[in-house]
């Protein structure tokens, strides 16, 4: 199937600004779905609120555009109710780790078979450029005229500590690499997190003098390095990319099935 066959072209043009990284994430994701040969009827995408969350409207899957931060809670309901479905949950900074932070750590803890894609652009784009829990210190935002003093979350470390059994990071510059990680994440049995650094030239880039989209993409190339690479060894300040966690652990819906067997005393 061609990539465009996974899109609801009726609903285009999309709302994203020119140069926004979210379209690249969408493309990486659709390539992953296509390469895996997943049937569209078997995929449910739930999303929250924000620029990133609008992704669910454009894909020709079952799509559930929910409340800010709650996408994983809705997804948990869908998944447990019908475990055969593949759940894809793209989330922005706020969805994943501010208002939705509790759902994020608990979905990870349960190790429920859902793929969370954190589209990290270090800013709240839709509301016009306020800092997020992924901005980090010393950043300019409309709610930080004197620069931020808030520390950022490290999505990878947080996901790992919370119990996610697959954790990876890439960027929109590394679109093919993102596709590879997304494929592995979707095939992984358990809660998988793929963080993709995604540029918001309109707000983050402009305010923090990172230039427009091509400059920001270049920056992802220059400020990140593959896990285990020489570059990372030489310069540990670079942001590592790669697969950080890939473990087999009891998956929630499967554990539930075992519980049902127990409840029925083996009568099933």
């Amino acid at each position, binding site marked *: 199937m061609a990539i465009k066959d996974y899109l609801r072209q009726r609903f285009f043009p999309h709302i994203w600004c020119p140069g926004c990284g979210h379209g690249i994430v969408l493309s990486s994701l659709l390539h992953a779905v296509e390469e895996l040969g997943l049937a569209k009827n078997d995929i449910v995408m739930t999303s929250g609120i924000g620029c990133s969350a609008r992704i669910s409207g454009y894909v020709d899957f079952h799509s*559930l555009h929910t*409340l800010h931060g709650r996408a994983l809670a809705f997804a948990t309901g869908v998944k447990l109710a019908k475990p055969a479905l593949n759940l894809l949950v793209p989330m922005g900074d706020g969805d994943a780790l501010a208002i939705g932070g509790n759902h994020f750590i608990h979905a990870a803890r349960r190790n429920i078979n859902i793929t969370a894609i954190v589209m990290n652009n270090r800013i709240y784009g839709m509301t016009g450029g306020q800092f997020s829990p992924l901005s980090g210190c010393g950043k300019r935002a409309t709610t930080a005229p004197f620069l931020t003093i808030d520390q950022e979350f490290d999505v990878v470390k947080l996901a790992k500590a919370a119990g996610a059994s697959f954790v990876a990071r890439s960027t929109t510059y590394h679109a093919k690499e993102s596709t590879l990680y997304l494929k592995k994440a979707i095939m992984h049995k358990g809660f998988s997190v793929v963080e993709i650094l995604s540029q918001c030239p309109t707000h983050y880039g402009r305010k923090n003098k990172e230039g427009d989209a091509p400059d920001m993409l270049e920056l992802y190339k220059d400020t990140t390095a593959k896990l285990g690479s020489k570059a990372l060894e030489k310069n540990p300040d670079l942001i590592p990319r790669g697969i950080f966690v890939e473990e087999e652990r009891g998956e929630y819906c499967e554990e539930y099935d075992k519980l*049902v067997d127990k409840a029925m005393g083996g009568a099933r």
Partner: protein
Amino acid sequence: MKNNIRFVQGNEACVEGALYAGLNFYAGYPITPSTEIAESLSGRLPRAGGKFIQMEDEIASMCAIIGASLTGKKVMTATSGPGFSLKQEAIGYACMAEIPCVIANVQRGGPSTGNPTHVSQGDVNQARWGTHGDHGIIALTASNHQDVFAITVDAFNLAETYRTPVILLLDEAIGHMREKLVIPEEGALPIVDRLRTSVGKGVDYHPYLPREDGRLPMSDFGDVHRYNVTGLFHDMWGFPSNNPRVVNELLHHIVDKIENNVHSITRHKEHFLEDADYVMVSYGSSARSAIHLAKNRRKRGEKIGVLELQSIWPFPTAMIREKCSGAKAVIVVEMNMGQVLAQVKSAVDHPENVFLANRIDGELITPTDIKQLLRVIQGRGV
């Protein structure tokens, strides 16, 4: 008729009703005085092939049942005041996206943490207007366990019929009190199943295009129709729209589908009402005291009766006006500061003859409490 008589708490009667109605997915978070519902279902659902999940919080529980409902399950959550507050955002989502679901609120004293182990009926208005924006809502209530069972079955039926969240407004006294419950035989009470679209594969299915009768057939997530569900105003495809005509029509639809069907949605019971000079309007555990008082006063020849509400929202304004039209006085008996009172006053022709008999201290209102007010109204002194 074998083995179908139980001696249970109201919360368990609610569980029995829900399972009878076809509940097969529950998500919740423990909160007094509703916890027995979750505890009971954590054992019952897995044995019945259903799903039970204890979520990380009240908000997540509400979101999870909405997600599960979209796969075709009959879903429910249960809570009390503070949890009910937290669920309001997602209840609004279920109103907007028109997702069938049932929310039991076993009321305790509020506001805030309030009086967790004591009775109250303070969430009547929150059930109506807890979530923001104009919307229609259904809230049901009951005063005894047989009715808790029946009204719970009704709640699931109405949720499916109108594609809407339905609130079960129970209270601590009903939830924790034990009394007899006879579980009806299978088939004795009607069950409304999910109305699914007859549109086949390859043909456009419009999830938000009402049929002529106003109902919206659904398609389960995972089936052949892939569509969008959103809390934004949306068109017949479920795709976000801020077109003024689309917004206007959708808002009217989600309000009118409830308000235009008040007659088929609302439920009430009449106790000694025919010739009553004094009409007590009550519901939930308060109604038990009102009924008790009416019985006693009738023995003495006093013309007093009870209009027991089994549904509060949409408010049965026309019915209240009619039933109260011949009364010398109307006494609203409830455990709050007059939430149903305000509705009754605005429904009747003579609001000056409507009085409140209430208790708000966490104790169940007694027949004596009501009698004292009645004596004053009747000019018989305090």
